């Protein structure tokens, strides 16, 4: 089977999966209570509640409500976000770019550090650097992100005053245009080093917090894969034919060790996006995670549904991409077998 055929097959399954996910999530969110909750005040009369239900179409049977919502999605209307006080589609892009920027920064931190540390430890098995790296990876993956975030805030925000919270300095943000919504990219496009520095400065703490656990996972995966590969016969053969150890490691062992690691990285990006909830709340990052948390607490189901749809599409897409990369990395993989 060709990659093209494989792609087509996977893309055809995608809508069916999405419909299934949307029905399940729609039903589950309604079990948690009516979406009318977000519009209610403590002192509303039943008649006023009925007026609101009529206004938002919540007096219709559940299947009718689902079809209305699904129809809206197909026409580009994801509903009204009671939390954002705006149509979901009007705010989704800005929230998404803020989160994507944070997750990408965290991903860069995690991948760079994870692969470097994993390689470093794996190539020095059972020596001091290896032990130290393992200590880091165990503690990194077991440390709760909210605790780590507060720790960083206390040290670097309250006491040292090095890093701020939020996404930007308001004045610097306002000094450049934002065609993409990604602050770092926009600042580069505007040629503003001040804005770029501001963007990076605001990204450091949340990206470190968000990337910590993923760094630890990638480090462990990279290390164990590398250790395994270094024991393979082809590595002995490479050494036997006189290749320097550095090249044996980089050209042969590390390349093969990257295959399972890339799978983990792909999955981790999805988890990074989900992990933004706590980080965005604590660091005042105006992204999807914080929006979602607020939506869940206040019963803003249009926002919850939009988020679930988005993450479903993202996970399915990332998985697809990982499968394709996997195939490219290891040509022995026969698609469809």
């Amino acid at each position, binding site marked *: 089977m060709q990659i093209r055929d494989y792609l087509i097959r996977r893309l055809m399954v995608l809508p069916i999966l999405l419909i299934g996910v949307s029905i399940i999530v729609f039903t589950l969110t309604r079990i948690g209570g009516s979406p009318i909750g977000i519009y209610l005040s403590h002192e509303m009369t039943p008649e006023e509640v009925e007026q609101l239900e009529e206004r938002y179409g919540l007096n219709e049977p559940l299947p009718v409500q689902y079809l209305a919502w699904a129809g809206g999605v197909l026409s580009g209307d994801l509903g009204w976000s009671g939390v954002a*006080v705006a149509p979901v589609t009007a705010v989704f892009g800005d929230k998404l770019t803020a989160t994507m920027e944070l997750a990408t920064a965290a991903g860069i931190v995690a991948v760079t550090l994870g692969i470097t540390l994993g390689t470093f430890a794996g190539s020095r098995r059972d020596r001091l650097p290896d032990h130290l790296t393992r200590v880091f990876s165990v503690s990194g993956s077991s440390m709760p992100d909210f605790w780590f975030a507060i720790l960083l805030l206390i040290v670097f925000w309250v006491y040292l005053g090095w890093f701020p919270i939020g996404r930007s*300095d*308001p004045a610097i943000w306002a000094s450049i245009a934002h065609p993409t919504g990604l602050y770092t990219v926009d600042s580069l496009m505007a040629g503003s080093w001040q804005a770029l520095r501001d963007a990076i400065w605001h990204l450091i703490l949340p990206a470190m917090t968000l990337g910590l656990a993923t760094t630890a996972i990638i480090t462990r995966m990279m290390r164990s894969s590398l250790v395994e590969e270094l024991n393979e016969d082809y590595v002995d053969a490479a050494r036997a034919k006189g290749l320097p150890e550095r*090249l044996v490691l980089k050209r042969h062992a590390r390349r093969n060790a990257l295959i399972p690691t890339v799978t983990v990285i792909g999955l981790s990006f999805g988890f990074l996006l989900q992990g933004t909830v706590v980080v965005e*709340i604590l660091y005042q990052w105006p992204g999807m995670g914080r929006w979602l948390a607020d939506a869940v607490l206040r019963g803003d189901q249009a926002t919850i549904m939009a988020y679930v749809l988005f993450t479903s599409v993202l996970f399915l897409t990332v998985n697809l991409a990982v499968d394709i990369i996997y195939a490219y990395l290891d040509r022995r993989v026969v698609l469809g077998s």
Partner: protein
Amino acid sequence: MDTRRRTPQWSRLLVVVALLAVACTSGGTTETTGEDGEAPTTTGGEGEAPATTEGGDEGGEGSGDVFVHAADDEATTVDPAQVEPGEGGETIITQVYERLIEVGPDGPDLVPGLATEVPTIDNGLISEDGLTYTFPIREGVVFHDGTELTAEDVKYSWDRAMTMDLPEGNAGLLADIVAETNVVDDLTFEVTLSEPSASFLNAVVTASVASIVSQDAVEANGGVVAGEVNEFLTANPVGTGAYELTAWNRGENFQLGVFEDYWGTPANIDVRIDIAPDTDTRILGLRAGEYDMMEIDPSLVPDLEGAEGVEIYSGEFLLEPIHIGFNTRFEEGSLPPEDTIGPDFFQDPLIRRAFNLTFDYEGFIAGALGGMGGTVPHYFPQGMLGYSEDYPVYEQDLAAAQALFEEAGVWDEGFTVSVIAEEGNLFEVAALVLRDSMAALNPAFEIRVLAQAEAQFDEAHASDPVPYAMWVKNSDPFADPDALMNAYIHPDGEWGTVHGMREMYQDPDAIAGLIDEAGTELDTDARLALYEELAPMLYDDPMWIIAGNETALNAHRDTVTGFVMNPLWPRPSVKFAFYDK
């Protein structure tokens, strides 16, 4: 063989460290104020509205030139006709809109706002029959859109709210009492009431829903449609206040700019209200100097007490006691299956009195409120007209409670009843204190505390009938006892109807008669005499357990000047126009 020269890994690491160091050292001292500190978009001119952008802190200035308040929740609307009392939008409405009469900074005294005088019978602005109020409108006041205030705007604003009559809003406050609004001339507004009301000025004219909006701005942006939200006004206030909304970055912040053409004493400093729902972040931000002020409750005092540069203000009592409701108006079998009581359970005044005598007030106030609170007589919060230290107040008396439970015939058999509360706050704690108090009195008395997310609680709370026999919340912060009585005490009032108080009171007509009479009595002394008669009746026949009343608290940096706080102002009970730093 690869012969290219490779950069050693340690040197790449050095580059990364150097970049981080540059970021650290330069970022902390950035003091950019943008284009002369101007916000990117402002109201002003031709009904133009502020931008409501997403994705960043547009506008504003560096935090050194702006007063930053950390708020714990987001507004859903800043339209006076749509806002719910106590909701986050009231914070903004208080700053950007004005009313004819305002509550002054000191206590409950009323001061002129957009009207030049506070109407009284003595000054002739209230008719002898107490039905007609005349408001002389201030001359030379301009809205944020540049149009001039006239009596037409006032009439339009009130009529608008009553015509829209949005279920989430508070239009009923006006509609229930206003019979007619009239423009006498450009600078004279007259309102006729359907019946005399002692609380009209305190509770209605000063309320957010009575804020004055620009007629031109509304008409240019959707006008008024009965039962429909005006989406423009939802996000774009056009008032006459000392501040104008310059940006609303949803989920991030509100930015309020000093309104240069304000008719009165102008505000001193621009304001940014950061939406910081996480309590730890707000506390750390205040300690770090990132925020200048935050609203606190007693549970947060230990985290801030003694912090360098932080001052804690402790003032009068809030006017929103935490209370636990008794509900009898539910259908048999509609309560949670664990509950063993029927609708007649709380109809017995002995049981309601016994509950009131069992609750550990001292423990709740000393523990949950950190000693910053007090007990409340039924139902007159401290600071409100009608309050007297002489009124009887419930205290824990387990022996008396046992006697009442025995007399009611439930001591041996016991009971189980569920109480709902919003999770993670003082209301949940109050419910837990009730549970522990009852269990300590008699292990056969089981209170099940059901802590719910806000939306779930609101849904249950707004149901008819309420599917629980007990719930915990605080009262709305009413400025006048009549509004409070009608909401929570009157047998045919708001909660009186929901809970079935007419069936609960021993003499509902007497209670209703006193409340109604006091509500229309314009002579304050006579009114106080009526409340004096009412107070012991409410003590003997309690409709609530009033767990306690919090002290008004605020935490701010010691650089803040001009600090004033009045619990009668919508939360967080501050007006930024007084402040500077």
